[in-house]
């Protein structure tokens, strides 16, 4: 599989997941989007040394993974893009911050290491939350929710149209890549003599396609408005879902639950 094929596979996978039928899939997209944003903001707001307080925030992805039946490994795979940068930046903390926080079993644990692990955990939590949103919500419903949040229609139109053509383009790139490597089996990438024409050819074809697309829109009376599937109206269960999570986040943010539980056992 070349890179484009992998991307195509991943796009398909997200589509299929979003088409699932779990309890989470049936909540309003607007509510899910809001809860996700608030969750990520809450996670981001934890102090960089507050690892024990942060841990309990895993409750949100944990519960959602359990209810939706999604697998956590699929989510772990998504970490490959941002985690390297996060870890690369985080790994300097133990080097520069050498105050000893606590000595455990004779091994000194420095503030640097605490903050390093805090960054890593935060990264995993934040990505799980956005993964859970996208794996349980269709893109058109998200666009509708974005419209309700007053994001300009041109952005959502572009997102919908681009989403439609992304898989098409990626597939063309994949076919072209395969065609290239069939005739240049020893090359790892595109040789510099073909740098311009490779994507350039596709670009020219795409501009023609955009023209056809515009024709197709005009022929069906396009006047600047797009119509999507309606997001379900926000019902009582959505409001309950929202409130429960917000209260839980607030509790976890203000009380160090894990430490509290621990302190009941350790006196």
């Amino acid at each position, binding site marked *: 599989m070349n890179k484009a094929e992998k991307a195509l596979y991943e796009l398909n996978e997200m589509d299929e997941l979003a088409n699932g039928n779990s309890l989470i899939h049936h909540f309003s997209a607007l509510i899910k989007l809001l809860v996700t944003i608030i969750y990520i903001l809450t996670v981001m707001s934890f102090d960089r040394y507050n690892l024990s307080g942060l841990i309990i925030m895993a409750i949100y992805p944990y519960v959602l993974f359990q209810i939706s039946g999604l697998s956590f490994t699929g989510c772990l795979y998504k970490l490959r893009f941002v985690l390297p940068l996060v870890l690369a930046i985080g790994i300097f903390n133990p080097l520069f911050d050498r105050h000893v926080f606590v000595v455990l079993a004779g091994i000194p644990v420095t503030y640097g290491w605490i903050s390093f692990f805090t960054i890593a955990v935060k990264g995993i939590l934040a990505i799980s939350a956005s993964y859970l949103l996208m794996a349980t919500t269709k893109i*058109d419903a998200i666009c509708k929710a974005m419209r309700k949040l007053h994001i300009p229609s041109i952005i959502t139109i572009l997102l919908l149209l681009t989403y439609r053509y992304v898989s098409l383009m990626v597939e063309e790139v994949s076919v072209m890549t395969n065609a290239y490597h069939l005739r240049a089996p020893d090359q790892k990438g595109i040789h510099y003599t073909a740098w311009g024409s490779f994507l350039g050819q596709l670009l020219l074809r795409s501009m023609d396609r955009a023209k056809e697309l515009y024709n197709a829109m005009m*022929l069906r*009376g396009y006047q600047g408005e797009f*119509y*999507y599937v309606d997001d379900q109206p926000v019902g009582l269960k959505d409001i309950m879902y929202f409130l429960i999570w917000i209260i839980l986040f607030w509790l976890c943010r203000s009380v160090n639950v894990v430490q509290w539980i621990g302190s009941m056992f350790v006196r």
Partner: protein
Amino acid sequence: MIEFKEVSFQYSSERKVIDHVSFHIEKGESVGLIGANGAGKSTVMKLLLGLLEGEGEIRISDIPVNRKNLSAIRKICGFVLQNADDQMFMPTVYEDMIFGPRNYGLSKEETEKKIDEILRLLDIQDLKHRYNHKLSGGEKRMTAIATVLAMEPQILLMDEPTAALDPYNRRMVINIINKLPQTKIITSHDLDMILDTCDRVILLGNGKIVADGKCQDILSNQKLLEENRLELPLSFMYQKEKELL
């Protein structure tokens, strides 16, 4: 219903792509528009829809095709593009189907009823909520036709409706075309399909009308077809072979 009077068209300073073309199509007719690559078939279609502007006069249902009447013209004419991917620009089949009717001011309920009817007619109800980019070639073609039918056109223009389809899907599309009561103009190189769906044929060559007449007559004229870089349809070929035997 459709009137072409001395229509010419040329892209800047090139030779004329369409050169003084005139024809008349009655309501309910099925017309095959044939010709070699570059003969001007697509240009005729685009002129008819007002996507291009040429010289001469074009009228549809007595409405002259010009910039002012575009909205009315496009309500009457439905155009099925050759590449279904260009036609279907929304994420799902359903959203694509409501796009046209809603733009023409149909209410949500009416649109809903309309598209269900069409999906039933084409027997593709199961595709309603599928993603466009995940349909097979045959399914794409069917849904592209459905999106156009959703606008209830009186005239259907189809550009290569059977291109790149397997024999089964090709037959499905032919059956559907024959089921539709609208006035139809179909361009194709698939002359057997034209034979199965049309009663009249207009043969274009170098931007001019070379022949215009009954389907059976023109498509069985081997000499005329070969002069215009076309071939006898297979069914006539068999007939001829049988006669020789």
